């Protein structure tokens, strides 16, 4: 059946050619770049304290965001799946709207919320607590990342919880399980795959997020910003390439895990 494989080859050829020319070759070149400055450049992220610090910052922040997103997204997603009320489709569609926002907008939103003239500052001043601002620090980044991760988690959990077999819960209840036991013995195991897949994607997105951090111009340096600074402010291409490699490997690994551990739940992510 070589005619079949020839046909399939012809179908894939344009995409393969385009992809090789405009991604594979340039990136292979980029990955060779740090070698020009010596092999140690590849490990700069581990050997230079500043980069290491930035990497650890990013990892910590991403993990915290992932955790918070899963907990909040899971609770809200389940609630939305189970609660019936008028306007639910509208609310769901509004809640998932931010999926299509660029990171810069989300940075701006955080400024609107937590900047010096932000909503939170107004509220805390009115409460007599002084103007509280959080936009430009770690908190700002955390909320920014949370803002763009939540829609995905809410959508995923709502879908997963809606698709869940209600009989499992009914079975547990018929055996006398309390609310907590149902959550522990039915919901959590049933949603484990979704959680893994969603968590990996949220983590990967947070690791690579640039626009939000860029807009907030936070003092709290994350790896994409470090990378960007190396490139644009200091024209240090080899180092920028080396940092890209590190970041790429981490995000690819977590996405790979999401796809292979959780299968179809992560498709189209």
């Amino acid at each position: 059946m070589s005619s079949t494989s020839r046909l399939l080859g012809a179908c894939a050829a344009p995409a393969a050619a385009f992809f090789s020319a405009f991604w594979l070759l340039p990136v292979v070149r980029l990955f060779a770049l740090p070698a020009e400055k010596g092999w140690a450049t590849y490990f700069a992220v581990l050997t230079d304290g500043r980069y290491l610090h930035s990497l650890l910052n990013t990892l910590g922040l991403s993990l915290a965001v992932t955790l918070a997103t899963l907990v909040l997204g899971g609770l809200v997603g389940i609630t939305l799946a189970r609660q019936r009320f008028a306007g639910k489709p509208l609310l769901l569609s509004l809640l998932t709207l931010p999926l299509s926002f660029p990171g810069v907008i989300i940075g701006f939103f955080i400024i609107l919320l937590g900047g010096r003239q932000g909503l939170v500052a107004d509220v805390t001043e009115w409460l007599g607590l002084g103007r509280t601002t959080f936009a430009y620090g770690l908190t700002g980044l955390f909320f920014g990342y949370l803002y763009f991760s939540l829609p995905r988690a809410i959508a995923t959990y709502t879908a997963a919880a809606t698709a869940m077999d209600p009989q499992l819960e009914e079975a547990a209840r018929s055996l006398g399980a309390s609310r907590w036991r149902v959550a522990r013995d039915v919901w959590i195991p049933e949603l484990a795959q979704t959680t893994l897949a969603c968590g990996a994607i949220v983590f990967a997105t947070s690791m690579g997020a640039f626009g939000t951090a860029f807009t907030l111009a936070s003092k709290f340096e994350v790896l994409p910003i470090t990378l960007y600074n190396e490139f644009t402010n200091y024209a240090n291409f080899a180092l920028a390439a080396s940092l890209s490699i590190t970041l790429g490997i981490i995000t690819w690994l977590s996405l790979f895990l999401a796809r292979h551990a959780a299968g179809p739940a992560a498709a189209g992510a």
Partner: protein
Amino acid sequence: MAHPRQIPPLLLALTALVSVFMLAPIALSVLAGLVNNYSTGLASGLTLRWIGEVLDVYGGTVAASLLLALLCVAGSLLLGVPCAYALARSRSRWARLFEELLTLPVAVPGLATALALILAYGQLREFRQSFAFILVGHLVFTLPFMVRTVGAAFRRHELLALEEAARSLGASFGQRFIGVLMPAVLPAIVAGSLMVFTLSVGEFNLTWMLHTPLTRTLPVGLADSYASMRIEIGSAYTLVFLLVILPVLWGLQWLAHLIEKHHGT
């Protein structure tokens, strides 16, 4: 005494809180784009002045972004749909490897992809200074989404049977691809296009590096305005972004819904 269990009020409160967190900034920014002075708030009166100013300074970016996104959808359809078919049907190891490679641009930071493109093709001046350079970057980034979405549809069991049915009735490859497969994966194609469109319109990481002062897109303009303009202008610009993307989003969603209903799958 309703037996189907009630949601605890705590969860409802949390849901409301999260909804406020998600929706308040959108409302705030819409409001801020329409008032005369943000710090005085609504009391300063409503105005379209800021939107006018945005269109004045950044009007070009809106058209550029829309055009870019449409071209990106077209390109990823032309390249991606046949490729998705090939990957879905092929059982060779090369196909699996290519599929994995194809998803890498999603994982590798956009900055790195952009850096690589600049280093590789930056000296082609005409190319570098045209929107085509950005388009190429967007295509590389969005192609995996299209391939993955449509590929999943091609892989569906029913579709294999549909194709075999068409073959048993004597349809050639072209006839069954156009007449049977394409209509059957249409919902996935619409979903993929929607995804590619929104990704391209909102793309910032790559574009920020790839753009030149002459080739600015909407998110680049947004970043600019946030960094250096009044908060009202930034908000008005955000409002313009919403006005641009919402109709397209909802339109395509409606279309997908319609097709789904029409096919009754």
